Each structure stands twice: as C-alpha cells, then as structure tokens.
C-alpha cells in the first residue's frame, strides 16, 4: 500500500500566492476525499491545531503524559476476550472481541478526547466543545474537561438527548453544559452544525474536539492517529493468543473513528480483510438508514470534508436514520471513502432488527452488554464468520458498552411497559 494521506510539508512550504491549479496546496487528502471546506474564520485555528498535533506527535513529554493517562485513567491496554458461545452462531469461526467498552467512560471515544484535551491546553485554550450522538463522545469530553479544568459545552440533537438520556445526565453531573439542538433532523448532523457555529464565534478561547474521523483537515488524520492504539494493541494481542493474524477485522462505522482506530495498523497486512458495518436502519429500500456506501450516496461536502454523502438531486443533505444514535449520520469519514474506493476495506450494513438480535445474543451467550453501535459490528462478525467457516478468525471492535441503550432495548423487547420502573 502506498501512504494514503497527504503530508503537511507541502502546505508548510507553500508561500506562493499565485493561483495556478498545481500550486494550490491540498492538505489532508485521502485520494480525492477529505480536504478543508470551512469558513475562513476557522482556518487559523485549523492551522494552529495541525501544528500543535504534529509537534505533539514527536514530543516525548506529550507522548509520556498521554501514555500515563491511558495506563492510569483510561485503563489501557484494553483486553481482548474470545467469545466461543457467541462464535457458535458465527459459523464456528473463532471470534475475538477488542474490549473498548471497558475503557473509562465506556467506549473508545476517550482515546481521542484525552489527547485532544491535552492539545487544547497546549494551545492555551480554556474551553472545549463537542458534538455527540450516542452521548459517548460527549461524556468522554465532559470527563476530560473535568479532569483538566476546562470549561465544556456539548451539542446534542434533541432526538438523541431523549434516546440517550442517561448520557445527558452523566455529562451534566460532570459539569458540562448540554445544549439540545432542535434544528433539522435534531440528530448528530445538526449537533455538528451547532458546534461549528459555536466554534466560529468563540474560536479564540475554544477548541472543538470533533468526536470522529470526519471534519476538516487535520481532524480525520488526527483522530485516527489518537485511536490507532486500538489496532496496535489488538494486533499484538491476537497474535499472542492465536499465533496468527485474523482473517477479518470488523467494526461499526458511524463517522468511522473506532473502525479507523482498529483498521489502521492492519492496513499494510494485505491478507487481513477490513470490514466496516454501517447502519442499515429499517432497510436500505426504506430510505430510512445510514448505509452510505450501500445506497446511492455520492461524493459531496459536509462539515468540512469531501466524502460519500447522502444527498438529494440538488446536493441538499438527506436525513439518516438508525436505532443507534452514534451511527445516525449521512456522511462518513473521508479515509473510509478512500479505503472503499481503493478496495482495501469492504463495507456492509446491518438493519435495526439484525442489530437487536446480535445485541441480545451477545448478552445471553457471553454476559457482555454491547452498545447498539457495536452490535452492528457483531452482525458483521456473524456474517463473515459464516462465510469463513470453522477455520476463520475474526477480530471485532467492541467499541462501547450498552448501559446507555437500556431504554431503547427495553422498549424493543417489550421489557419495560410505559410508566414502570
């Protein structure tokens, strides 16, 4: 594989102001995807961030501080768990879970947030804001803000504040302000719009910690790098457990951060299939889904990046739907679009119904309650395991735990009639 990302050195050396096409810098491209489609007022902040994260990447002090936090606060390395009783439903293939659900705050999101919060402090900013869908990124950001003494505001779609009420309470208890966004579909996309508006207004004091591998450069690259620890650890752990590399690495894909985190280290391992699972919602035919790669999504720009996008004939964003708030997003991180078009990664989708089945199955066979987002990856594992058969070895990123989803699950399975506790 050739290195997919543009380096930033070409930006830095570009002092030219002439405007021939060839001379214009194209920072942060993954093939034709990515880029920096933002209002000009944000450009200085993105340049500052890019510089800060590049310095941090080679600064032993930063690396040591982050490693210390991960060891003593996040709980890294996260373990892997082989799940034979669940695997019995996966065509007999061996299935290993990477347990990001056991991280402090309950998902992979903390990996990225602690690093961005450290960078926020290094940039001399005193306030951190975030968007959140499932509430996991919001909780992680509120947690990091409490830990590091930063002011914190989290934007969350009104629909999501209702279906992920537990996480709203957690954020507030941690001292964050939670703003319910009522515009548009009142989900993740609209929360990002509102966070961007806050950022444009308060950029001098505020860092916007984007919670996934989307947004303008350098976010897709930076957030991936902060999650790459998942794949680093998992690759070594699986090798140690089984003596070989997995046949497939499976992860759910909302914006795509947990997937990029576990994929990244495996990209050069050509024999390892990388499989992303999108939210199929009520089925692709229904139009109510977030399966960008499965449906007729085409490249477009949303929230600062060029990527596959659910859009109408005019280029207006089409609303997505998923039972899991964290995957309910009409675009996807640009590196996924690149991996998909180059064929290095494959993408499939899981419908709400399949997801709830896999969710229940893991609970009952292994005593692990996954997040609904992560349950999409479990559906993928069941399918891929059956395709591979008993010799197969599947590594699944269990990106988060399901406490936040008890309300949705209870309603789905008819366990908690309205008004009972």
């Amino acid at each position, binding site marked *: 594989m050739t290195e997919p990302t543009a380096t930033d050195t070409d930006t830095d050396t570009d002092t030219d102001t002439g405007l021939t096409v060839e001379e214009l810098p*194209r920072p942060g491209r993954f093939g034709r995807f990515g880029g920096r489609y933002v*209002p000009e007022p944000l450009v200085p902040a993105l340049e500052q961030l890019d510089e800060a994260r590049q310095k941090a990447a080679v600064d032993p002090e930063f690396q040591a501080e982050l490693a210390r936090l991960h060891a003593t606060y996040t709980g890294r390395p996260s373990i892997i768990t082989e799940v034979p009783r669940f695997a019995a439903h996966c065509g007999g293939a061996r299935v290993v879970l990477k347990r990001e659900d056991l991280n402090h705050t309950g998902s992979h999101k903390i990996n990225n947030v602690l690093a961005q919060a450290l960078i926020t402090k290094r940039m001399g900013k005193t306030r951190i804001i975030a968007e959140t869908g499932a509430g996991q990124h919001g909780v992680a950001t509120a947690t990091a803000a409490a830990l590091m003494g930063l002011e914190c505001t989290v934007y969350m779609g009104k629909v999501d504040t209702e279906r992920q009420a537990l996480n709203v309470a957690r954020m507030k208890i941690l001292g964050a302000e939670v703003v319910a966004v009522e515009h548009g579909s009142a989900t993740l996309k609209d929360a990002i719009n509102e966070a961007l508006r806050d950022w444009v*207004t308060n950029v001098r004091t505020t860092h916007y910690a984007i919670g996934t591998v989307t947004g303008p450069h350098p976010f897709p690259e930076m957030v991936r790098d902060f999650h790459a620890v998942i794949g680093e650890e998992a690759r070594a752990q699986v090798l140690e457990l089984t003596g070989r590399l997995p046949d497939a690495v499976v992860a759910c894909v909302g914006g795509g951060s947990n997937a990029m985190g576990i994929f990244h280290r495996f990209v050069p391992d050509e024999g390892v299939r990388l499989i992303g699972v999108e939210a199929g919602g009520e089925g692709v035919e229904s139009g109510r889904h977030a399966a960008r790669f499965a449906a007729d999504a085409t490249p477009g720009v949303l929230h600062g990046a060029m990527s596959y996008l659910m859009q109408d004939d005019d280029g207006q964003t089409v609303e997505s739907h998923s039972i899991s708030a964290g995957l309910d997003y009409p675009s996807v991180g640009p590196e996924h679009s690149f991996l998909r078009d180059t064929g290095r990664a494959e993408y499939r989708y899981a419908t709400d119904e399949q997801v709830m089945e896999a969710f229940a199955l893991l609970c009952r066979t292994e005593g692990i309650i996954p997040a609904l987002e992560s349950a999409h990856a479990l559906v993928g594992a069941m399918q891929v395991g059956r395709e591979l058969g008993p010799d197969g070895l599947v590594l699944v990123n269990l990106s988060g735990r399901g406490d936040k989803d008890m309300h949705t699950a209870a309603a789905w399975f008819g366990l908690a009639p309205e008004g009972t506790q």
Partner: protein
Amino acid sequence: MTTTTTAEGFADVVARCRAEGRAALVGYLPVGFPSVEGSLEAMRVLVEAGCDVVEVGAPYSDPVIDGPVNQDAMAAALAAGTRVDDVFTAVEAVREAGAVPLVMTYWNLVLHRGVERFAADLAAAGGAGLITPDLIPDEAEDWLAASDRHGLDRVFLVAPSSTPERLVKVTTACRGFVYAASTMGVTGARTSVDADARGLVERVRGVTDLPVCIGLGVSTRAQAAEIAGYADGVIVGSALVRTLGGDGELSQRLEALRTLTAELAQGVREGHR
C-alpha cells in the same frame, strides 16, 4: 481571461458609488422565503428601495455560518420545495429590476450541480458571481478556473482572525470585492459591529486594491453610516430576513422591508469619507 458577461458587475457599482461619495448597499435574502414568488417580490423591493447589489441566497440544509434567523428562513424555503434552479430565476429577476445579483451559496450545492454547469447557468442568468462562505481558495481550483471562463466575480471571506498570510492568499483569489466578516461569528443582527471591523478593513487595504465590504451583524441606518465611513460596501442580511419574516400579511411585511432598506440606503450616504 474571456468574459461572457457584459452586464454591470460589482466593480462598476463601486465606481458609481465612489463617484457619488458613498458606500454601496448590499442586501441579502434567501430564495424561496416565504415562497419563491414572495422572495422574488422581496428582492425587487430591495432594489427599488436602494440596494445596489442583491446577494441572492441559495437555501441549504446545513448552513453552518448562519444564525437562527437565516437558518429558519432557509429551512422554510426548503420545506416549501425551493430548488437550486429557483436561484437562477431570482438572479434574472434581480438583474431585470436593475441591480447586480451575486449568489451566496454553500459549496456542496455548486459541487453537486457541477462547478462548470453552475457557473454557466449563473452567467446565463445574468449573475455577477458567487460569494462562497464555506469555500476557501485552497480548495477552489475548479471554481477559479470556471469563474475565469465565465467572467464571474468570486468573493471569498476574510475575518478578524485572518493572519497576514491568509489575507494575502484570500484577497489574491478574490475578484469583485473582499467580504470582510465584521466579527467572529455567524450571521445575525448585532448591536455593535465596529470594533474588529475597522481594523480588519485597514489590514485588507494594506494587501489589496479590491473594494472591501463589511457584513455580519449590520441592522440599522446608524451602523450602515458608520461602516460607510471606512468600507466600500455595507452588507445587510438577517435584519432584512427578520423583517420579511415578521407578523402580518406579506404586503405589509414587504412595506416594512421597503422602509428598512430605504433607511439603510440613507445610512450608506451618511458615511464620512
């Protein structure tokens, strides 16, 4: 550069206004609010009451640099079925009414139609160019080429946060004028716009001879007069949209819009230059 448009462009407007010893008045309204026909009517009112340039807004599903007033108007326009095609109809209407039409659009609408096709359609409708709030010159290679081919103005934004290097880069890419955001933030009326704006205009003048217009937050005759004292144009948006979206019959709201526009037109003639 080949030029296919011969109608008056922004540079002509500025020259005319300078000769009259005043700043230009630029009024923004989104197409399709309160309906396509209603928005065309409102744009004609702007022209009759003294706008030199109409910034024809393309409604978009995710307008990240717009405040609540414009967001709501765009959402209403889209809910009522407004299409990108209607933007070109509005451009024609503004041109017929005798003002210079510039389209303000988020980039994905242009990208999706095809940059070349959008530029050709805009030129054919009599549009003078594009204001692109979420496109920076660094990502604009197709648009730079298409705007050259069709003789269209291209207006990029600068902001109080812009570094000297960015000011050079952005203003070099601009044609027509430079859009200076008065403050850090989204669109919406503000009580004060002057603090950052004056300094920014000075900095822009240090790097380019292009006209500089100030937008974001302007809502009153007094503000327009103050800005007219140091900028080439005053851009008013949310205050007009709010007036058009007020209470009462459409005919009454159009009259209120006429009154406000006339006051602002007075303002740009009161700047001390």
